[in-house]
């Protein structure tokens, strides 16, 4: 008790003191790394000493430092004997090592504060208002010693109007460790490339984008005229980085890539040959327009969204899955504006059998699941961190988290029937449900134990009437700038393979876009603003361009040289991953691989619970039959092995594009692929039995499987192989196997 009184008594005195707990002591703890997650900021602390993660709770930390351990941590009567000074200077063993020296400014700040009686900040003591870092962006030339050096300066402004240079007090962190930043803000680049320095002081963080340039003294910008605004923005950035974009790919590569990207299948040999032979200048643009109208395009986009919206049978039941998926497919077939699509999802209520988008809420059973999913999918905010502590790299606090979750507490269910087969399984629902809105049971904030009033994310004042809150949300959200950015960026990623902000569901100041101007162009285009004339587009049917048109945005992207670039890098852009200088190679998805194997062999697929026939990309859900009702087919197992997600999470990350040993075993010795190869009535069978010459058959196989002619070498060797074998059929199987297992077949390039 005595100590508590002492602190209070000293509080008046501390007004006059120079050391502020919040503005001086806390930054020392952050700068020295004491409050990192690996150290005392860990949820369990370290060595019995726990402070808030990255200093997010100064008031709590004050208590921990001053009132725990009978004053051993801070000992005003003998300041130098405080553990707060003995430990980090290694006068007493410290697992975290030496954090600063005796007599350093850090030491002196802590010592002065302890000696002053560990004063608490008064109500009138100045609060940090803003942090200004200079510069915010740097394209750095190497110095003669091939190093990239620059000094950052950081100024803090406080509520009393005072300004301080805090360059030596802030924390510097790097998104990619290709540089060092000294404690006093001197940047030293270690290799060329781009990184972001996060400058952190108290609760504020400012990102600084750094590019360390190669000297490239003979660099010349020799690039064809941009096809449209996308190329203008991509080129502008590349030029600054002294990188040349890779050239546009050849027709054969293009026709293959665009089919796989828009339809998930390959062009037939005839389609591909016709396209390559076509001499007209606008054939690529025409093909793009044609493919966007194909029914397979709607299947392919419904598949992408069905992953994110968790369309799976256990929770939605088979009818719900088919309804929701069918509704999505229709939306893409009719080019429903994307903002309308999302509005209908967010505002959905009613029977999950009659209102297909109501299945979105049926799949997300708690307020937390709903709020996290909507935040992540549509606002690019990964809020999960903020459930337990303020987000360490984002602005979201626990207050924000629980207010946002309360918005979704308005959802409840009337379960009309549930014929689930496993009565122990609380996740299984089979039967009609009504999604209702307007329930008034706000989420409890675990810190206060009290209900938390609802508030929209980043706009807490905004909350509709309780029974209409999700209606209000649906219009608030789709008019939100961030929403449009997220949608534009996700669409970009869906064809380019990488977001301008990447990952696509992680928008925050500390994860800036690699090309903000490019993102802004896409946003403007998606909104339907911006003049079509400047975009270098052909006249399209239905102009003026409608807002939120997926097809129009895709058309813009796909007609760019950026989309059409080769995957082969040049000497200037070899290291680039984030600036779209060349196409990134990646493995095709589970559905693309299985559907194209089926297509080129002309053998239909069989999935558990379906008649033989549908493509993998057309499957509405994940697993129709329970384990007891039937085992997965080999085709189902193939999809799982190649990363089709179980749709239990609202995250793009659930789909895997990794390569694994299981996959190569599937391709090399797996039963499915080998059975399809050996199927008597497949394409190999009809080619083997045909009168066509061996060369002609090889040509046909190459165009069917790889969308190109064989080279002379390939034609000679494979023809010889075929004619030397006793069985033409078996020889063709072997050649086909080689084609199906080639890089060109398995990888997008």
């Amino acid at each position: 008790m005595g100590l508590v009184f002492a602190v209070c008594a000293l509080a008046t005195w501390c007004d006059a003191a120079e050391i502020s707990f919040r503005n001086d002591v806390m930054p020392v703890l952050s700068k020295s790394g004491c409050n990192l997650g690996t150290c005392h900021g860990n949820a369990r602390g370290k060595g019995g000493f726990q402070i808030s993660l990255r200093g997010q709770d100064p008031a709590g930390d004050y208590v921990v430092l001053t009132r725990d351990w009978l004053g051993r941590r801070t000992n005003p009567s003998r300041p130098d004997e405080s553990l707060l000074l003995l430990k980090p200077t290694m006068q007493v063993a410290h697992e975290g090592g030496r954090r600063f020296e005796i007599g350093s400014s850090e030491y002196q700040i802590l010592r002065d504060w302890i000696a002053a009686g560990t004063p608490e900040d008064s109500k009138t003591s100045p609060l940090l208002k803003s942090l200004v870092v200079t510069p915010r962006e740097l394209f750095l030339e190497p110095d003669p010693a091939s190093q990239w050096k620059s000094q950052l300066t950081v100024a803090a402004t406080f509520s009393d109007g005072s300004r301080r240079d805090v360059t030596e007090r802030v924390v510097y962190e790097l998104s990619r460790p290709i540089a060092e930043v000294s404690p006093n803000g001197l940047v030293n680049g270690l290799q060329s490339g781009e990184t972001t320095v996060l400058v952190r002081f108290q609760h504020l963080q400012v990102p600084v984008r750094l590019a360390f340039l190669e000297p490239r003294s003979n660099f010349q910008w020799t690039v064809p005229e941009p096809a449209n605004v996308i190329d203008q923005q991509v080129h502008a950035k590349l030029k600054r980085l002294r990188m040349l974009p890779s050239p546009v790919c050849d027709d054969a590569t293009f026709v293959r890539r665009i089919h796989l990207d828009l339809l998930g299948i390959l062009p037939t040999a005839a389609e591909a040959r016709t396209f390559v032979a076509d001499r007209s200048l606008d054939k690529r643009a025409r093909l793009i327009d044609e493919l966007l109208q194909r029914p397979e395009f709607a299947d392919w986009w419904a598949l992408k969204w069905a992953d994110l919206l968790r369309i799976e049978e256990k929770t939605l039941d088979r009818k719900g899955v088919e309804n929701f998926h069918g509704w999505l497919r229709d939306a893409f077939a009719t080019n429903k504006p994307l903002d309308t699509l999302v509005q209908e999802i967010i505002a959905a209520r009613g029977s999950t059998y009659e209102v297909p988008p109501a299945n979105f809420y049926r799949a997300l059973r708690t307020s937390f699941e709903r709020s996290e999913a909507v935040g992540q999918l549509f606002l690019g905010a990964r809020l999960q961190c903020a459930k337990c502590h303020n987000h360490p790299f984002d602005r979201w606090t626990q207050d924000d988290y629980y207010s946002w979750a309360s918005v979704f507490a308005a959802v409840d269910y009337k379960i009309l029937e549930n014929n689930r087969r496993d009565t122990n399984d609380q996740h299984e629902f089979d039967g009609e449900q009504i999604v209702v809105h307007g329930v008034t049971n706000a989420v409890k904030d675990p810190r206060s134990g009290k209900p938390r009033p609802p508030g929209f994310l980043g706009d807490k004042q905004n909350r509709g009437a309780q029974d209409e809150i999700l209606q209000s949300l649906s219009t608030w959200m789709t008019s939100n700038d961030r929403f449009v950015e997220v949608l534009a960026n996700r669409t970009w990623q869906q064809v380019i393979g990488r977001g301008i902000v990447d990952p696509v569901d992680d928008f925050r100041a500390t994860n800036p876009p690699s090309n903000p101007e490019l993102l802004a162009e896409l946003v403007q285009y998606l909104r339907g603003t911006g003049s079509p004339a400047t975009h270098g587009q052909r006249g399209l049917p239905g102009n003026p361009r409608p807002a939120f048109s997926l097809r129009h945005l895709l058309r813009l992207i796909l007609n760019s040289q950026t989309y059409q670039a080769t995957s082969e890098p040049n000497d200037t852009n070899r290291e680039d991953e984030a600036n779209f200088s060349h196409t990134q190679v990646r493995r095709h998805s589970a559905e693309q691989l299985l559907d194209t194997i089926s297509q080129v062999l002309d053998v239909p697929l069989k999935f558990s619970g379906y008649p033989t026939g549908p493509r993998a990309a057309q499957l509405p859900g994940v697993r129709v039959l329970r384990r007891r009702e039937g085992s997965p087919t080999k085709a189902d197992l193939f999809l799982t092995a190649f990363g089709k997600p179980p749709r239990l999470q609202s995250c793009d990350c659930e789909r895997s594009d990794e390569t694994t040993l299981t996959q190569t075993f599937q391709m090399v010795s797996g039963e499915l692929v080998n059975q399809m190869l050996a199927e008597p009535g497949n394409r190999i069978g009809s080619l083997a039995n045909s009168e066509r010459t061996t060369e002609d058959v090889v040509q046909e196989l190459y165009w069917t499987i790889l969308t190109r002619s064989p080279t002379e070498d390939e034609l000679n060797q494979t023809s010889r192989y075929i004619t030397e074998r006793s069985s033409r059929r078996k020889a063709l199987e072997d050649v086909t196997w080689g084609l199906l297992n080639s890089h060109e077949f398995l990888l997008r390039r």
Partner: protein
Amino acid sequence: MNANLISRRKALSIGGLGMLGVTLPKLLQAKETAGRPGRAKSVIFLYQFGGPSHLDTFDPKPDAPDGVRSHFGVIDTSARGIRICDQLPKMASVMNEVTLVRTVYHTMKNHNSAAYYALTGHAPPLDDIRLRDTLDLFPAYGSVVDQLSPVSNGMPTFVAYPHVLRDGEITPGQHASFLGKAHDPLLVTSDPNDAGFSLPELSLPSGVTTDRLQNRREIQQLINRQTRINEYSATARGLDAYYDKTLSMLNSSRVREAFNLSAEPASIRDRYGRTTYGQSCLLARRLVESGVKFVNVYFSNNIGGRTTSGGWDTHGFDNTRMYPILRDYQLPVTDQTLPTLILDLKERGLLDETLIVWMGEFGRTPKINDNISRDHWPQCYTVLLAGGGAPRGFVYGTSDKNAAYPDKDPVVLDDLTATVFSLLGIDPHTEVRDKLNRPLPVSAGKIITGLMA
């Protein structure tokens, strides 16, 4: 930019400490090079699904009152002062090689949640009878080992068999989860006790001979030579590496030989027991001999408990009774196989570097229920360790008089995990990143130094 420029170790240490300038990573590296405890090169994780009764196996309480005391008796063992259930006489003869941890506890009462905890060392978000197997849950131990300390001799790091655990739904914790499919175990679901047991992946499809496969491979390589993609794409090179590995596994003898149980003399196979579990344990020995680091052997595919097959979940439901089932099935199988494995490893000089972990998801109620059986009891149960740097003939922790709660030295499951990682030479505080890029320690527990010999 090329992420490969930063070595894994460096990236790991930088990420792990929040990227704070240069001082902390250096500190961590220094700590790493200073060396950590860890004598185990491999772990054989014998998982007892359903939850064995600790009172009727390794923590008998002969002085407990009727209604608690086991119907079985107790016997002295080769370790002075350690007594176990009298249905395990062979086991009694090797107790001088074993550590019993008699005070393991947690709070999960449902099989899938508790099993996930046991298989990963991380508490599940909720105690759910049908806990869903999502990518935000933790990876299996072996997957963590595959990420942090993989085998480099061509053998897989992590092999799991002969079942996939399910209780209504697939039990989480059996694969790599957020670490990525590349770190999944090599999963074998064929029965090592079958006469023609072999790894299905290593059998060529019908009509495909080794020669024909070689021809196919040459055609594939002919096609791959036509582009420069291997020069500029790490993805293409990665794919190539997997093809090389697949083909070499199909052609070479090393992996095939490790899985070839018929190479074992009949007498050895008989010693282990001609049961799925017995032959699985023999296979585990062959695998660690060939360099595999983590082997998960599942005693059963389900929780069982009602018949003399399946797991250890002996509630006495449907008018069944625990004691005859234990007596006729789980205990004799265990008593034939487990001591054989321990002695076999010892005779081959492998016990020092191989850690055996024998555990279920929980123990069973001290109070015998109305069915003369026992229900779930996570509050206190026994885990058996042998070899790999664990003490010999040793008991860690004391349970109370009815084996209901820890009396001395309680061991929360996380601490056991931290200790196992440490015995394997992996710092349990090493961080991995989940799909949201959050840094998470591979174990949140503390190393129990008392479990390190």
